[in-house]
Structures are given as structure tokens and as C-alpha cells.
């Protein structure tokens, strides 16, 4: 009869499988509030797939936001589940990527892919 588990408390050991923290993970995000953001308000459009984007370092109106790199205009907010990125940004992480998909129907929506740099 064998035993399962490590046989020890798992308190303070980082497992060998974990080589990074959640700050290192890439993100695929469906942005929120697209229709009320400056980019859509100014253009009545959404940026095309492939447009370069990044997470702005400081929150805007208490939310972490994504801006389009060429113009610096905010295109959408990150869902609050990504609020932990504030700590990651504070550690020096930056998040950059591209629009992976976007459209106006059924509601203006933008999907982005972000990598930590």
C-alpha cells in the first residue's frame, strides 16, 4: 500500500512547476465599456485586429485601461478580475499586445492579447 501526497506541509515551498507568477502570464481579454471609451466616442468605430495596444500604467477613473498605441486613446477597460495587474505594473511589468478581434455587433467589442514585457 503506497502513500499519496508529499508527506509534508506545503506552506513555503514553491513547486518546481511554477517558474513565474501571475504577473508573467499572457492575457486574452474581452475589454469592457468599449462603447463609452474615448476611442469609440470619437470615431464610432473600434480598432482593427492587429492594432498595437498596451495597458496604461495608472488607473483611469479607478479602472485599469487599455489604450491604442498609435494615438494613446483608451479603447476599453480591463475587467476587475485583472486588478492584480496593478501590483505587477508596480513591480515594473508592462503589458503590450494587439487587438485580436473587434466588431460593432451585437455591441461594440474588442478582444486583445497582451504579453508581459
Amino acid at each position, binding site marked *: 500500500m503506497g502513500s*499519496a*501526497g508529499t508527506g509534508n*506541509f*506545503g*506552506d*513555503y515551498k*514553491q513547486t518546481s512547476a*511554477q517558474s513565474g*507568477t*501571475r504577473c508573467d502570464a499572457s492575457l486574452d481579454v474581452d475589454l469592457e465599456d468599449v462603447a463609452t471609451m474615448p476611442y469609440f466616442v470619437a470615431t464610432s468605430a473600434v480598432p482593427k485586429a492587429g492594432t498595437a495596444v498596451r495597458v496604461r500604467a*495608472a*488607473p483611469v*477613473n*479607478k*479602472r485599469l485601461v487599455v489604450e491604442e498605441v498609435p494615438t494613446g486613446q483608451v479603447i476599453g477597460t480591463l*475587467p*476587475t*478580475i485583472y*486588478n*492584480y495587474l*496593478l*501590483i505587477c505594473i*508596480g*513591480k515594473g511589468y508592462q503589458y503590450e499586445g494587439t487587438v485580436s478581434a473587434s466588431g460593432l455587433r*451585437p*455591441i461594440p467589442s474588442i478582444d486583445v492579447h497582451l504579453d508581459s514585457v
Partner: protein
Amino acid sequence: MTPFDSEKRVLVIGDIYIDTHADHGYIRLGGVFHAARTLHAIGATYAIAFLAPSYLHESIQAFLKQLGCIDYASVGEVHGAPGVVIIKESLESGDIGYDDLLREARRVQWNDSALLALLERFAPTDILIFPGAFPLENVIIESRRIRARLHVDGQYLPSFVDDVIRLSPLDTVFLSAPSTALKLSGGDPSQLWQTVRSHITSLVIKENRGGSRAFFGVQQAEAPAFPTKTIHSIGVGDCFDALVITAHSTEPVAHTLGRAAYYASSYASTFDHDVFVDEIAHALKIDANVCQLSGKRLRWEQRPQHHVYLAAPDFPDVATTKLDSLEAALRYHNFSPHRPIKENGLAIAGSAVPHQRALFRADIELIDKCSLLIAVPLTADPGTFAELGYFSALHRPTILYEATAPIFNLFVRNCASRVCSTLGGVIDSVFELLG
């Protein structure tokens, strides 16, 4: 400058258990260790007075030293039970269902002199008590002698209101929703505060993924929760308590609560203490931004107004265990779930057209009443998908719960605001979408 009051010396009193996370195959020390990890992470000066079986003492002492604990003492020897808690579900989707092994056989040999000696040596300014099977009155009396501020986590008080009155005056009492005390107050935290306000300085209600609230005098403050990819919900409330009582008493209470929620979400995101400590160290540097960040706020007493339509093949010949669990979890968090077939009836093939149309209209009326729809395709039921599409076209939030198997249909997946494969994920999404 740290947002925490470095003049405070915190003594934490309570049980220590082995938390056995059955769903992760992971064990670690729990009970007051959750507060200890938090106090270590924020660099607080603290001591621990614990109750535990003697076989754990060596491990307890070793880990407390690693956590920078200034002083500690065993104030209660536990006999008859191993001090092991089996946690079947680390995420609090619904009632977690801790199993404290042999709890009925548990006996405590209390050591008053050890507590007195620790109080004398450590001289705490603040004492945070997690009640258990030990003489709470003795602890309170001895603590008052040294004029420490008294903070009690009321979750495990046998009779909350009676016990708070009996133990008063107290500085802070914490309570988590759901709780019997809240239910007995008509589900209204304000009502509960009116009942106890002349006996305590502050009542802090932790409303789980919906945020928190503090009552003090005629004022109240509230703050959102910060949802994250939750790995576990164990000890997150204890972490929150420790963060609230160590904050500067001069700062806005809403900031204290918001920060505590943000750090507690970090605690819930990992079992790795080094990762937690690192995140807190960086969060401390950006405190102003953390305190003002937007999160999710869903007041406990307002949740019943959120009606949730459960679209599913709720048929007699379908196993509905997952649907039953979802309904129970939503009720646990105080929402109002609806199962249309149970409420309005089942349309049987071949039944008269007027009857079918009456059922259809009743279901539409129910849909109109709901702020969220959760589709649970236990089988490939066209009705479930039709309801998901209908609700989605109303531009109201929806969740696709892949309870039994992944759903690959393009329209189904993309109509849903969220797609989840676990009950925990569904509950997280409910708060995200409605908060």
C-alpha cells in the same frame, strides 16, 4: 510611509488546524496561521496564543519563527481530535463543508497561566480573537487588564448577539455573510448593527465576493471586493480581519476596507507564501491607487433582487445534481435563482397548444424579471440554448456553465458573456457580471 500602524502590537488567539485541501492534495497549517501569514507579509509586530494537539507543536513553532512571530505560547492542549480539517472544496462556491475530524470528541485543556505570561511579556495593544472551544470570557477578562483593544471574529460565536452583549464592550466584531445572526436580523446588516451598537465600537460585515461594510456610531463605510482567479477561500476572512485591525485608525475606513479586500484577494490567489509576501510588498508601494481601485460591490440585502434564470433540461429523466448544486450555491450567496420548469411547469410533447403558449408566456415573464441567465446544458437540450440566445439578445449578462461537457457551438459560446466549467467559476462570474 506604511499604511499600517507600526506602533500596534497584535496578539492573535485561536486554534491551529491542519488544513487538508482534498481537491488539491495539499496540506498546510490553518486556523490562526492565516492571520500570522498576513501579519508577516505586512511586517507587523505580532504574537500568537494557540490551541492545538501537542504533536503539532514542533511544526507550529518552526513555522511561526519563519513567519517572524515575536512570541507565542500554547494556551490550550487539544485532546481527542487530531486538529485536522478536511476541505472538500477550497473555493467557497457554496457552503464549503469543512470536516473537522473527530470534532465531537475534541477536548481542550486550557492553560490560563500561559496566556497571562504571554500577555505580560508581549504587552499587546490589540488582541484579535478567533473564538473556539476555549473559555472566551477568561480571555476577555485577562485582556482587559492590560487595556488592549479587543477585536473578535464573531463567525463562530454560538449565539452572536447574546455573546457580543455578554462579552462587551468590544472594539471590533467581524462577521461574514451568510450567517445565522444576519438571517435573524431579517438579512439586513443595518438592523444587526442597531441591535449591537451600544455594546461595540465597530461591526465589520464581510460580504464575500460582494465587498464589505463597517458600521461605527452613526456612520458606515463600505468597499468593494476584488475578484481574482481564486485558488482557495480558506482563511481569506481571517486575513481580512488582520489587515483591518492593523491599519492606522486615522485613515478613512473605506480605504482600510478596500485595501484589506485587495490584499485578501492576493491571499486567495495562491498557496505560496513567498508569492503572497512579494505581492504585498509591492502593493504597499502603490497604496493610494490600491485603496481607490474599482472592484465589485453587491450588498448582501440587495442580492435577492437579482433574479437568476437557470436555463437547463430540468426534466424528470435527467440527472440534475449539478443544477441542484448551482441553485444551492446561488441561494447561499443570497441571490434569487429560478428553475422555470419547477416554477411554471414542463411542456410535454403533444400537449394542447394553448397550454404550451401559456407555459411559454410564463417563462418569458420570468425571463423579463431576471438580471442574469445561467445556461446549464446537462444534455444537448435545444430549449436551453434558445433561452440563452433570447436572453443574450436582450443585452443582459449570461453565463454558459459547461457542467458536464464542453460546448463547441459558435453561437452558444459567443452569446454567453462568460463560459465556465466549474461551479466556483460560475459564482465568481455572477459577482463579476452583477457587481
